């Protein structure tokens, strides 16, 4: 093991820094990133795929599922603490992890390295997809917490554009893979499965989960674009549901009560 002799006046390339024992907090953040991928983000993903699969039973069942979810107590708190914050942390720290990695799958085209690479590309794709999905489905358009009856229609009209449908297909496939393979990565990194045989099984199980989620997601998408007829838009959905709006809309009823 040769070492370079330091000549005064020249700066030698340092190479990779040695381990910094006892320094920094990257262990906490990196492991938290790993954990948030499973709980709560992964758990929410499972719920989301399952809820969307209600669409297979038709618009009424789908709308009822949305009614149930939007009617949960502390809904906004659950959304912010259980979904938005962990999701944003997982996404942003994930991008930071990608930025610090040095992908070499061209030189070392091995299965595990492809898994590593795919985990980064699918993560990035899901990041853009979820951003778009949240913007169009959660933050703009007909508000589903107020008009759950509009849910099936809202998704259906969104998917009527072929490019957006294509983006949804990609988003479903990428998020299913990212979560399924991520479960294997979690089990391997946290020392739950350690040996090569056990890890092969865990990898297969993770990929199997990904494939099941992909099929479920694609089936749900199909029920919006092909299985059920086009829903009609109801102009009521554009109005807000608070008391003032109610009384403005139905003055006769209000007056009737007053008299």
């Amino acid at each position, binding site marked *: *093991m*040769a*070492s*370079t002799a330091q000549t005064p006046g*020249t*700066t*030698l*390339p*340092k*190479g*990779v*820094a*040695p*381990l*910094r*024992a*006892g*320094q*920094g907090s*990257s*262990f906490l953040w*990196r*492991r938290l990133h790993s954990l948030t991928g499973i709980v709560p983000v992964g758990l929410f993903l499972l719920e989301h795929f399952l809820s969307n699969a209600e669409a297979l039973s038709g618009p009424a069942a789908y709308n009822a599922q949305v009614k149930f979810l939007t009617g949960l107590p502390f809904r906004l708190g659950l959304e912010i603490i259980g979904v938005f914050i962990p999701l944003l942390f997982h996404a942003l720290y994930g991008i930071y*992890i990608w*930025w*610090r*990695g*040095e*992908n*070499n799958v061209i*030189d*070392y085209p*091995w*299965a*595990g*390295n492809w*898994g*590593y*690479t795919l*985990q980064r590309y699918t993560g990035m794709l899901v990041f853009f997809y979820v951003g778009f999905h949240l913007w169009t489905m959660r933050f703009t358009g007909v508000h589903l917490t107020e008009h759950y009856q509009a849910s099936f229609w809202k998704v259906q009209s969104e998917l009527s554009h072929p490019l957006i449908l294509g983006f949804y297909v990609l988003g479903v496939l990428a998020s299913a893979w990212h979560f399924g393979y991520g479960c294997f*990565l979690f089990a*391997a*990194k*946290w*020392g*739950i*499965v*350690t*040996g*090569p045989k056990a*890890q092969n099984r865990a990898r297969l199980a993770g990929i199997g989960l990904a494939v099941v989620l992909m099929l479920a997601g694609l089936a749900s998408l199909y029920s919006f674009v092909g299985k059920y007829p086009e829903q009609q838009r109801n102009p009521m959905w554009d109005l807000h549901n608070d008391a003032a709006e109610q009384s403005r809309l139905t003055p006769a009823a209000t007056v009737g009560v007053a008299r």
Partner: protein
Amino acid sequence: MANKTVLFKIKRQTTPTSEPFWEEFEIDYRAGLNVISLFMEVALKPLTRDGKATTPVNYDSNCLEEVCGSCAMLINGRARMACSALVDNLEQPITIEPFSKFPVVRDLQVDRSVLFENLKTVKAWVPVDGTYSLGDGPRQLPQVQEQAYQLSQCMSCCCCMESCPQFNESTGFVGAATIAQARLFNMHPTGKVLKEERLAALMGDGGIQECGYAQNCVEACPKEIPLTKSISDVGGDVMKKAVLDFFRL
């Protein structure tokens, strides 16, 4: 008819700070050539392919039987040992480069002292130094010996680190070899007295958490050391320690 030849090019660098350059060589083919013997041929007749005089190639090597770990380099883009890289199995022209993630000393010789620093940081030893004899150590079970033997074959070649996408200047990841050595000495009945300290060291910046599980290390390792098993195993130990520290410290 012309004799069969071997075509190869070497990425060379005169000083640690100078610019690298490529030189092409062509030598007569012989059966059983390895990459080291190509360098020996160049040293015998230091002429490039187009007949220009050059210097013999600088490289680390020692045992020439894949046990010392000195002659690791990039051969056709992959991290491996030059001594066990047989010309018959390589696509020509063979490209030979120094490791890309370690400072070049000269030509193919690189500074791999980061591994030594990392081994010291995780205290990869059995602490028995003293002024008087401590007597015999505790007995090791044969099944533990068998596991330990695999890990003890590490020859510090650094192929696992060179091929790891997470081992780079941005992360300063410790690399698989050090983690496997920490596992080896944690397994040892006397060495495990330092287990807590080793695990704590591996939780620092650049520690085990930086592993992205690309699993290149275990594929690249010339000694077939179970590196991913070691990372998962030590990863589990580190997590247990982290959780216990969180509740008990």
